C-alpha cells in the first residue's frame, strides 16, 4: 500500500489521541488503535518503513507509539 497514505492515516490517528495529557497512555491508545483496526499487512509495512527510514513524516508521538507498542502478532499459520 502507498506508504504516504499509511503515514497520513497514522498521523490522523495521532491527531485524535494527542490531546490527552498522559502521553504514555496516548501512545498506547494509538498503538492499540493500529492493532485493533489495521490489518497485519499494513502494520508490518509501517513497521518496516519506520525501521528503514530516518525521516518518516510521522508525528513524534505516533512514531514512538509504533516503535514501542505496535507488533504484528504471530497470527495463525498460513495453513
Amino acid at each position, binding site marked *: *500500500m*502507498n506508504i504516504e*497514505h499509511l503515514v*497520513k*492515516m497514522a498521523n*490522523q*490517528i495521532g*491527531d*485524535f489521541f*494527542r*490531546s*490527552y*495529557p498522559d502521553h504514555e497512555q496516548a501512545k498506547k491508545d494509538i498503538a492499540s*488503535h493500529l*492493532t*485493533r*483496526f*489495521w*490489518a*497485519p*499487512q*499494513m502494520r508490518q509495512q509501517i513497521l518496516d518503513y519506520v525501521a528503514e527510514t530516518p525521516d518518516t513524516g510521522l508525528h513524534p508521538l505516533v512514531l514512538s507509539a509504533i516503535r514501542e507498542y505496535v507488533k504484528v*502478532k504471530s*497470527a*495463525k499459520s*498460513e495453513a
Partner: protein
Amino acid sequence: MDKQADYGTPASRVTDRQVTLEIDGKSITVAAGTSIMHAAVEAGISIPKLCATDSLEPFGSCRLCLVEVEGRRGYPASCTTPVDEGLKVHTQTPKLADIRRGVMELYISDHPLDCLTCSANGDCELQDMAGAVGLREVRYGYDGSNHLDAEKDVSNPYFQFDASKCIVCSRCVRACEETQGTFALTISGRGFDSKVAAGNFDNFLESECVSCGACVAACPTATLMEKTVIDHGQPEHSVITTCAYCGVGCSFRAEMKGEQVVRMVPDKNGGANHGHSCVKGRFAWGYATHRDRITTPMIRKSIKDPWQEVSWEEAISYAASELKRIQAKHGRNSIGAITSSRCTNEETYLVQKLVRAAFGNNNVDTCARVCHSPTGYGLKQTLGESAGTQTFDSVMKSDVIMVIGANPTDGHPVFGSQMKRRLREGAKLIIADPREIDLVSGPHVQADYHLKLRPGTNVALITAMAHVVVTEGLVDEEFVRSRCEWDSFEYWSEFVAQPEHSPEAMQAATGVPAADVRAAARLFATDGNAAIYYGLGVTEHSQGSTMVMGIANLAMATGNIGREGVGVNPLRGQNNVQGSCDMGSFPHEFPGYRHVSDDATRALFEAAWGRPLDNEPGLRIPNMLDFAIDGSFKALYCEGEDIAQSDPNTQHVTHALSSMECVIVQDLFLNETAMYAHVFLPGCSFLEKSGTFTNAERRISPVRRVMTPKNGYEDWQVTAMLSEALGYPMPYRHASEIMDEIARLTPTFHGVSFKRLEELGSIQWPCNEQHPTGTPIMHVDEFVRGKGRFMVTEYVPTSEKVNAKYPLILTTGRILSQYNVGAQTRRTDNVAWHPEDQVEIHPHDAEDRGIQDGDWVGITSRAGNTVQRARISERVQPGVIYTTFHHPESGANVITTDNSDWATNCPEFKVTAVEVTRVTQLSEWQRNYQEFSDEQIALAQQRDEARVE
C-alpha cells in the same frame, strides 16, 4: 383479502383514565378522550362514515356518522364526540337511517354510477356506505349541474386524480397536512364549487406534492387511485413485508394478485411508520421486474470478453475454482468480500461467515464503511453500543430537536414527517447544516436556529456548544455524577472550557455567529427533553468519529440520554445499515461487535463453525482497493454493492477492480462494478426472498417472499452454494435457520427468531432473557459500557483545503425520489422528479464565473473532473457547491477524494476542494466512461445474441 380495520379516529392519547359506556346495549370500557366512533369499532359495531379515518383527526363534515345519545338533544357526530362515563349510545334508529340515506342520496346524485367498471370496485367506501345505509333510490337526477365531466389529472406517474368521483371529504387534504406535513392540497371554491386542488399548480406533478401516497391511502373513493390498481384490478391477498430502501424500515402490505404485486400499502401496525410511506417504498418497486434484470449466471475470462451465459453449477464452480487458484498462488489473504446494507441480516451474516470460515481470513467489509462506520466506533467508545439509543416515536416527547448533517425530509421521509408533526406541536428546532434543507423553513415548520456551518467544521461547532454548556453552568451534574466516568468528564470539561473552544474563537473556522451558537446551546441544555438526530453530514468527514463522540458528549453532559424524548439518533442511510454492522460485516469484529482478537468469542465461533479463525483484523474496502493496485489483493466477491459508483475517487476504484483477477458480482443488474466483473451471479429483490432488515432504531423487521425468485435462488442460497463449492458446506434449509444461528451466537439477539417476529411484528434489539420483547430505549439505568465515557474532541481541520486553484467546497447528498446509486430508482418512474444529478451553486459564485442556471459546468478536484448542469440556488452558501450521486454518468465520485475518517476510513464525501467553470462538452472521464460502458453493454448483448442463435 382481509382489510386493515379502520377505527375512524385515532386512538386517544390519554393513558391514565378509563371510561365505561354503552353502545347499542353493549357495555365497553375505553380510554378517556376516545371518540364514540372509535369505541363502537372496539365493541365490534361499525357506524357509517365517510370523512373519518383513523389516520386523521376527526373533521365532522359528512354527517353520516350521526348517533343518538340518551338524554342529549340532537344527533351528534360520533367521530367528533368523545365518550363519557355512563353514556348510552344508539347507532341504528329509524331517524338515523333516514338522515343517513338522505346524506348518501346527495352524494350519489353527483357521482358517476359506473361502479361495475370503476377501479375501486370492491374497495370503495362510498359504495360500502350506500350499501350500509340501504340506499335504494336517488331522487335527484343528473340533469342539474354536476361534476361528472371533471377532468382527470394523470400527471403523477403513480396515481391519478379523477375529480368526477370526488366527494370533497377532504381526507386527502388532511392526510397531506397531518400525515405527510407537505400541505400540497387545498379545497378551492365554496359550496357546490368546492374541489380538491394541488395548491396553485395546474397538476399534481408540478405541485409541491412529494408523491408519498398518504392522500391516495386516505381517499375513500376511486378519485385518488394507484395506476397499478387501475391496470391490474383489485388485489386478492396481501403479505406484510419491509421496505428495502431507507433506514426508516417502513412496514408494508404487499397487495398481490397471484405472484404479481398490485400495490404496496404502508402497514398501520408498522412500528416505524404507523401506516405512512414515501414515494420510494410506496411506488418505486417496479425495478424488481424491470427488463434490465439479469436472471441467468454469466462468466468470462477477461473484462474484454463477451459474457457467456452458463448454468448455476458452472458459474459457482468457476467462481470457486478461481478463488482457490488465486489463494493457492497469492496466499490466503489475497481474496475478500463486500456486502451491502441492501442485503438482509441473514445474507450479510452468511457472507462474513463465508469469508472467515471458508476463505480463512477476515477480509470482509460492508458499505457502512462509506457511511456510518464512525457511528459504530464513536458510540461504542462513549456509550458502549454501536447503535442509536431511541425509537422513532421518541421524537414525539422531544422539546428540542437538533438535526446535524441530515436531511430527514429527503433521506428518511417518513421519519421526517413524524418530526414535522412534533415541530408543529411546538418542539424547538436547531439545524446544523451547511445547506438550507427543507426543514429550515417549510409549511408550519421553522427552525429556531440554523447554524449554517462551513463543511468540515462540525467538531469545532459541537465543541463550542459544549463550551457554552460547561462554562455557563448548564451541565446536568447529577446525571453525570451518577451515570458517567467522572474522571473523563473532568478532563473533557476542562478541555472544552478553554477559551480557544469558545463560540467566539471557533467562529473563524465554522462561520457561524457566536451568539447563535450560544443561544442554540442554551436552548438545547435547558428547554426540556433534547434529542440529536444526525446523518452522513456528521460521519463522512475526516473527523467523522470525533464528531459522533462530540454528539454523545453533549447528550451525556446535558443528561439527555436514557429515556423517551432524548438520545443520540444516527439516521442510517440504507435499509439495513444497522443490521449489516450488527452481523459482523466489519473486518475486525464478529456479529454483535466482538473483536476478532477476543479469544473467548473466537473460540465460540470456532466451535460453531468448525474452522480455525484468524485473530487479526482483515482489510477494509479502501485497503482492499489499495492492495489490489499493489498486486496482492486479487479477488473480490461483491454482493449487492456497487463500489464503482458509490465509493470515492471512482478512477482509483476502477483501477483497483481492473487489477484483480477475479471479480464476482451478485446483483440484480449489470451495475457499474459488474462491468469489471468476471462472474455475474444474478441476485433477487426483497420481494423474492425471506429474511430480516434492521432499521435505524435497531428494529428487526421481517422481509417476506411474495414471489418466486426470478433468478431461481434467494441470495443467501447463492452464498451457500459458493461456500459448498469451496469445500465448506452451509446446509441451511431456510433463512430462519440462519437467524437461529445468529441468535445462538450473539447475546443481544438471543431472543430473536422468525417465530418471535411473527408474534411481535418487529423487535428492537437487544432481545434476550432480560428483554424478551426487545429494548425500545437503550442505556436507561446504566450505559451498556457501565459508565458513560467523555472523549476529548480536538478540532483538526481537514487536509482537503481550498486554495486559489480549488477555491470552492463540494459537498454531496441525496434527494427524496432517488436512492443511493439509483440502480433501483432509476429503473422506475421516479426519474420524473430527478432525471439527472445537478450541481447547486450560489448566485455569487455563479456570477463570478459567468455561469447561468442550466449551463453545463466542469467540476474539477484534485481527484478528477466531471461535468454537470448548474442549478443556481441560495440553498447553498457562497463558497460551497452541492450535488448528488444517483446517476453514474454524472460522476460525482470522480471528484471526491480518498481522504477519510481517522478511525474508520469512512470517506470524506462531504468535503472536496473544487473549482467550477462553464464548459461546452462532457469531461474526459465522462467520454471514457461512456465508451467503456457502451462496450460493456455490447459485450452483455452478445450473450443475448448467442442465446438466440
